[in-house]
């Protein structure tokens, strides 16, 4: 299909990762010769990438944020600046394989909200990254791997039109610009994680589909941008806080009551077992939720 794509890459001052990501990406776009574009949103807040990109990758458009805004806001800025209707949101720690865009564009049909490639973690088989399933375990939402056997680069025999998943990976997904501008990531999930799950969940509830097309393949250096800058305990706190916010936003009826019951038991458990970290995660979520209550 001859549809051009805008590739939006929100990035901190990760020159090395960007170099690794841009090389195969630009080569692929050259091959396509469809007038695709690459927009890097310099989210370092200090213009750390702007000059370097202009000098090293003159074909790349640069949007420079005066302040570090975080992944969600930076992605929105890039999508706003995109020239094409189809946008591939991409992390700087993702490296695509040739031929990624054609199957993605093909799979992003009208009833599909977003589609991700089959994401390999540094060349290994993925865990829950792109073939995820959302479950409730003990009253809490968890993302688990579907357990499908997938051959990278090939159509899955059971899901020739794409494998349904709980969410499209925010760091590697094709979406429609207009959809994202109308409904971007929920800022309550700042600083990171679960925002793409929430974004997909909203669409799934509207009857849309979110897919992974295994014909399209990318490699992900997991947490390549966060790990060097953010202590693990904060990363974990952000994940767990957002897990709770997700639950409070999306669980309904018996699931929600079971969750609250489980949460009560969990607080007692943390009190008895002195699980301070879990209590801190819960309070981070509670403080945020009670400041801006959800409208489920």
């Amino acid at each position, binding site marked *: 299909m001859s549809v051009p794509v805008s590739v939006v890459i929100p990035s901190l001052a990760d020159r090395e990762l960007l170099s690794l990501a841009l090389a195969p990406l630009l080569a692929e776009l050259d091959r396509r010769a469809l007038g695709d574009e690459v927009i890097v949103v310099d989210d370092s807040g200090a213009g750390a990438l702007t000059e370097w990109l202009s000098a090293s990758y003159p074909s790349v458009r640069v949007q420079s944020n005066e302040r570090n805004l975080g992944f969600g806001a930076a992605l929105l800025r890039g999508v706003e600046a995109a020239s094409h209707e189809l946008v591939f949101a991409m992390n700087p720690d993702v490296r695509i394989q040739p031929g990624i865009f054609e199957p993605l564009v093909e799979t992003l049909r009208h009833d599909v909200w977003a589609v991700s490639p089959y994401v390999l973690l540094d060349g290994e088989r993925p865990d829950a990254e792109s073939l995820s399933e959302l479950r409730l375990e003990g009253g809490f939402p968890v993302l688990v791997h579907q357990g499908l056997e997938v051959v990278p680069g090939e159509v899955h025999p059971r899901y020739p039109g794409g494998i349904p998943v709980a969410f499209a990976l925010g760091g590697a997904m094709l979406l429609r610009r207009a959809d994202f501008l109308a409904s971007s990531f929920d800022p309550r999930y700042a*600083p990171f994680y679960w925002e793409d799950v929430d974004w997909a969940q909203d669409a799934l509830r509207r009857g849309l589909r979110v897919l992974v097309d295994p014909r399209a393949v990318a490699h992900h250096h997991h947490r390549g941008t966060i790990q060097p800058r953010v202590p693990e305990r904060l990363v974990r706190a952000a994940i767990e806080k957002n897990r709770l916010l997700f639950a409070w936003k999306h669980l309904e009826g018996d699931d929600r009551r079971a969750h609250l019951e*489980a949460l009560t038991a969990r607080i007692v*458990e943390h009190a008895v077992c002195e699980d301070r970290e879990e*209590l801190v995660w819960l*309070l981070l979520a509670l403080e945020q939720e009670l400041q801006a209550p959800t409208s489920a």
Partner: protein
Amino acid sequence: MRVALVLHAFPPVSRTGVETYSEALARALAGQGHEVHVFAPRREERQAYLSQTTEERGSYRVTWLALDRDPDSPELRRARPGVAAAFARFLERERPEVVHFQHLIKLGPGLVDEARERGIATVFTAHDAFAVSNDYTLLAPDLSPLAPGDVEAAARCEQARGILDEAFTAHDGFLPPGSGDEALRARLEQVLHGACADETDLARRVASLRLERDERLSALSRCDRVEAPTAWLAELLRANGLRKRIARRPCGHDIGALCDAAPVEAGHAGPLRALFLGGLYEHKGAHVLLEAAAELGGEVEVLLRGCTGSSEYGRRLARRAAEVGAELGGPFERAELRGLLEAADVVVVPSLWPENAPFVIREAFAAGRPVIASDSAPLRESVRSGTDGVLLPPGDSQALAACLRELASDRGALARLVSGVRAPKGIELDARELTATYAELVAPQREQRARATARLPEHLHGFAAAYEALDALPTQELVRRALAGLEDLASALGEARPDLASALTSASAQRLRERVSDLSRAADWRAEVSRDRERALHALEERVAQLSAAAESEAQRASWHGGLLEEREARLAWTEEQLTERSAVAAELSRAVEHLTRERDWLASEEEARRRELAWTAECLEDRRAHLVEAEKALDAALAEREALRVGLERRETELDTQAAAHGELARAYEELRSSHEAAQQHEAWLRGELRRVLRPLVGSNAGRLETPEEIAPFVARALEELQQLGRELSWRAEEMEAASRDVRGVGERLFHGPLLRRVDSWRRAVDPSGGES
């Protein structure tokens, strides 16, 4: 600020000085807005070993750590297995920003590192010498002084206490004064000061004590701040290895209720009332006061109040008090303190140990009572003898009796001491000072956290700050907020408040039930493991001690061999030294001989040179003498010549005078002759002119053109005629000329020949004897 006070015991379990002070400090710090949490152990056999129980005390809280027994062995004093881990759980749970250690006996030094590993500021206040010696009284069981750095003496003290254990069913670690068992005294004397009977045991104890002491000093040196109430204690700790700057800062006291105590009525009619307050143990010296009371025979009322166990000393003290008419009471509540002090005129502190800064002295001063205390270095920092009390030699009951008698008889002296008493530092001031200290210590850690947050990407700052703020809260507060937040959440979601009972019995609480069960088993397991470790540690200590003893024995052998070797080496060295010295002397002698030989040769050569010089000098003298003779002759000749010259000169002078006269005459003659000569020359010139005039007509102007004989002939003929005429004239003229020439020759001869010329020649020769022409 969240502050944890950590100490070995706490009221009401124990009420000695440090515990009472810490209780007052907890209240005062809480009163200044701090969240204060006390961590203290207590013997609690009904609860699981090392379990923790938190008790609310109004403005502060106390967490009791359950121990199953007191730390009666050095091994347990050092580090009871599990205590540090229990303290770590306390720190994790309560999140203090500052841990202030008041005492570490029964707890061990491991607590310091637990706090430091969590980045918590640590303060240690030394209240006694425990940091450097288990025997913090610095007294041996026979009440003799014990040097804090003498580990062997401390080990002997432990051995001696074993003897006390055998002798008494209960004791306080000292031989009760007055005990009449001479055999027991002799045994103690032998163990404490004599040759050691059990070297292995002693070596084991020394190794253990040294290890314990080093660990304790090392841990306390790592505290962020170390304080001591007196300069004496600060110096003692420093001198014995506490590698940290020790700030001297007196502790404050809860003096509020005591400040209103009724003043001393110095002039009351009754006998003087002396009060002893404190532990009734040997080192506190209560028996010294009783002996003084015995001497006073009722002149002074003596009251003793304080804790005493069922020890031999306590029993003896009770008997002696009854004998001397003193009143001996038991322990007292703090509420009684004011009444006890009001009923006394003076407070007696007859300590036999170098007591650091007894709280009873501050309490007495707060109530306006002067203090009679033992004259020890630390107590000199508390009592100003003659101003607010009297200092007396420790243990001197007679001096104490004399002092009390004097105050009893001279109430003016008592009144003067009373007037010199000043109120001690209050606990509120103490708390304010500590607040400043805590803030100073906490600031860098807060800054460090702020810097860590600032290094994060900007959009994470708010999240990280919220995380840190929550992470700093005690667990209890987290739980409280979580439960409250859960209610609000349920309300916001439009759900009913979760029922705790149903939540805990629901399927989702299965994990909780399993974990609680696990925790219970884990607690039992931890206690068992701790005991195992304690036993293992004890065994290890025993093994280490045995090895240390063996090593000590080997070291002694090695030392003996070393000594022998050293002795031989010393002898060898001495011999070598002697050889070296002798070689040095020989070399020196050789050098001296060589030097003397050279000197002798030099002298011989010098002598020869002198001899030659003398001969030469003699020759020279002879020559000089000959020369002198000749010179004399020459001189005589010269004198004669001079005389001849003188005569000649005189003659010459005469001649010169004559010649001068002749010269004048000659000059005049010369002048005359010159004039004649000039005249003759003029005449000659005239004649020549005439000649030319005569010839001119002959040749005329053609004289130059007469070249041919024809041209010349006429002229010649005429000239011959004229010449003939002229010849004649010329003959005449020649005759004239001849005459003139003769005249000239005559004058010339006169002038250049004859006597005048000879005279001139003689003058010339006189002037130039060489005879040269002038």
